[in-house]
């Protein structure tokens, strides 16, 4: 994945040439974070813009709808009251004709009643029609042939008509009917005598339920509140909750105190004074009638679809964001892993370079020490012999003694240098053998043929040696390869063991300064045919091989032994024909810190 990212990163950087160099200077992790955050912000911004736009559109749509309803309902109210008005006009015309024809009064029988009844039945909105005289006494009513006496002279509608010659209809406040127990809206006209004088009032009673029933079909579907009221705020009809509001006054509400005085129609938003719900309210004062129709929709109803859309969008947006963040997190952890591996690789390279330097130094020191020691031997030996041969008090003997002292000084110096080099090398090239052999076995198991069983016996406390993994791995691999070759295609077994050698070999002979040394023993043992003595004699010679031509040049074991000797160890073979072969690598155990503090 990392190589694909590298390619994409590089292509992107080249493509965005003007800022390409800037991109290449930005650390990848920071780049991913910035891009992710920018992506989230952009997506969130887009989401917010979409939702905000949709919100505005939903509110605007709600306003338009309420306005449309108001227009329709205003027309409906005009139609209804026009119909009632025509019925009232007809009633007046009928009364005048009845009077002219002498079909009025006690001698007329029930003729006026039947005429009123017929007129009342011709209008769906009118529940009752009645005539009064000029004093306010009810004369006839469509509801009953023999109505109880009723005087309406004190009622506002009677006084309005008696005080004015206007023939306009008067819509009064709803009154509670004594007969039906329901609120009814009186709609009245003046009855004028032939000479123009006031002759009484013709009253049509309109049941607000007539309007409410019509409004119900709209309110249920659209979740609206529709109200028909007088301009003074008296509610004539309302849906829903007509019963609770008929005849009540809403004169204190903003519709009547603030908005209607400013404009005959409009739309506004506000908190309902009735239920405290935030609403969108459209209203219209009905032309030529003292009526106002209002339609309100709750804000939550207006935004219901918007809420659903927002939830749907969130259901898409949130997983997208989560995926974006998840991908960024994965990418960042991959980049961090890569950076960490890169750092580890560079550290390992540095350590390897350091180890190689130290090893080279150790080799140089060892080589020089070896040569100087060889050169010192004849100096020291002959100095001793000369001292014995020279007279005791002669200057020649003293001179030879000084030569000897100088030689000893050089010997001590060489020892110090070797000790220092040994400490440096120990610090830089310590290889834990148990871990090394375990790692090596993993790769060897994949390379050894299937007919060969590879077993191991590793002492976990075997300790460390001063060597690099590369050096020992090659030696081990060569030995295992040789063992597998010796076994051939038959079923066989190779045993790899690693243990501390308990032989702390030491010499107590005079002049010996080797001291006790810990060794580790690494062995590769096979159950192949074994090595004949004549072959074993030449096994470690360069270019000696028993393999077919083209299968090897015979440098494997020679090189392996040279490497082991370079490490201060020894490669030994133990084999008899028919008894397999065991190659053992002996290496000095790496000194611990405590050992290094001991005198060399």
């Amino acid at each position, binding site marked *: 994945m990392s190589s694909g990212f590298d390619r994409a990163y590089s292509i992107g950087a080249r493509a965005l040439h003007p800022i390409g160099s800037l991109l290449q200077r930005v650390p990848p992790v920071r780049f991913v974070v910035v891009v992710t955050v920018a992506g989230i912000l952009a997506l969130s911004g887009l989401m917010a813009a979409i939702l905000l736009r949709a919100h505005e559109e939903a509110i605007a749509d709600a306003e338009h709808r309420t306005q449309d309803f108001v227009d329709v309902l205003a027309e409906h109210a005009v139609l209804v009251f026009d119909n009632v008005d025509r019925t009232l006009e007809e009633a007046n015309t009928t009364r005048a004709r009845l009077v002219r024809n002498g079909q009025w009064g006690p001698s007329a029988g029930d003729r006026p009643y039947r005429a009123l009844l017929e007129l009342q039945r011709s209008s769906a909105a009118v529940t009752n029609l009645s005539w009064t005289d000029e004093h306010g006494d009810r004369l006839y009513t469509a509801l009953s042939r023999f109505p109880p006496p009723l005087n309406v002279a004190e009622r506002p509608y009677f006084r309005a008509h008696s005080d004015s010659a206007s023939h306009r209809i008067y819509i009064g406040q709803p009154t509670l009917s004594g007969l039906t127990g329901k609120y009814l809206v009186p709609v009245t006209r003046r009855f004028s005598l032939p000479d123009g004088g006031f002759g009484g009032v013709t009253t049509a009673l309109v049941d607000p339920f007539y309007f409410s029933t019509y409004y119900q079909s709209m309110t249920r579907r659209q979740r609206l509140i529709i109200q028909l009221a007088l301009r003074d705020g008296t509610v004539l009809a309302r849906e829903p909750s007509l019963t609770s509001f008929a005849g009540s006054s809403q004169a204190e509400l903003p519709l009547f105190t603030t908005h209607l005085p400013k404009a005959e129609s409009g739309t506004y938003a506000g908190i309902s004074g009735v239920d405290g719900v935030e609403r969108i309210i459209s209203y219209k004062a009905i032309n030529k009638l003292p009526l106002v129709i209002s339609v309100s929709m709750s804000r939550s109803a207006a935004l219901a679809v918007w809420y659903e859309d927002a939830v749907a969008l969130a259901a898409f947006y949130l997983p997208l964001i989560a995926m974006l963040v998840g991908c960024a997190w994965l990418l960042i952890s991959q980049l961090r892993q890569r950076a960490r591996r890169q750092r580890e690789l560079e550290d390992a390279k540095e350590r390897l370079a350091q180890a190689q330097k130290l*090893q080279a*130094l*150790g*080799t140089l*020191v*060892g*080589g020089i*020490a*070896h*040569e100087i*020691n*060889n*050169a*010192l*031997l*004849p*100096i*020291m*030996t*002959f*100095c*001793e*012999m000369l001292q014995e041969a020279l007279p005791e008090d002669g200057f020649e003997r003293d001179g030879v003694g000084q030569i*000897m002292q100088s*030689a000893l000084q050089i*010997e001590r110096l060489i020892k110090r240098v*070797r000790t220092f*080099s*040994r400490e440096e*090398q*120990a610090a830089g090239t310590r290889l834990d053998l148990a871990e090394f052999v375990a790692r090596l076995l993993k790769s060897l198991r994949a390379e050894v043929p299937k007919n060969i069983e590879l077993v191991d016996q590793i002492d976990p406390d075997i300790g460390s040696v*001063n060597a690099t993994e590369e050096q020992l791995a090659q030696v081990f691999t060569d030995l295992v390869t040789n063992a597998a070759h010796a076994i051939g295609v038959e079923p066989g077994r190779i045993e790899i063991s690693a243990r501390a*050698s308990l*032989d*702390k*070999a*030491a*010499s107590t*002979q*005079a*002049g*010996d*300064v*080797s001291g*006790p*040394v810990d*060794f580790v023993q690494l062995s590769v043992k096979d159950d192949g045919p074994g090595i004949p003595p004549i072959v074993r*004699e030449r096994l*470690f*010679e360069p270019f000696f091989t028993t393999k077919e031509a083209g299968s090897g040049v015979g440098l494997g074991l020679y090189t392996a*032994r040279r490497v082991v*000797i*370079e*490490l*201060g*160890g*020894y490669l*030994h073979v133990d084999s008899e024909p028919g008894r397999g072969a065991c190659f053992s690598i*002996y290496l*000095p155990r790496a000194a611990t810190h405590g050992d290094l503090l001991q005198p060399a």
Partner: protein
Amino acid sequence: MPRILVIDDESGIRSVIQTVLQREGHSVRCANDGKAGLAAFEQNKPDLVITDIIMPEKEGIETIQTIRKLDPLIPIIAISGGGRAANADFLPLAAKFGATATLAKPFGAAALLDVVRSVLPASGH
């Protein structure tokens, strides 16, 4: 007169050891590597073998192993100036693989003669 075989690839070392031992009355033969040393050993078996460790052709430890197989009792003194590696100290390995005694270079005539005297009587040769 004990016969001593000295095996070392450095001619100067061979010469010094030969001089010191001959002054002491030993008969000394020299060989310049393990292969020549084994040939000399088989040709005329000595009473003592002094062998270096790091040599071309055949290493000293292998030479010691081979000689030990040919004669389990013969005294063998391993000498070494250390390996090319700073921590190379082969004398303990030489002892493990059959050397009777070891001596680290450089050594003086007295140290050499002490070691030779200590191994010759003990061998019974």
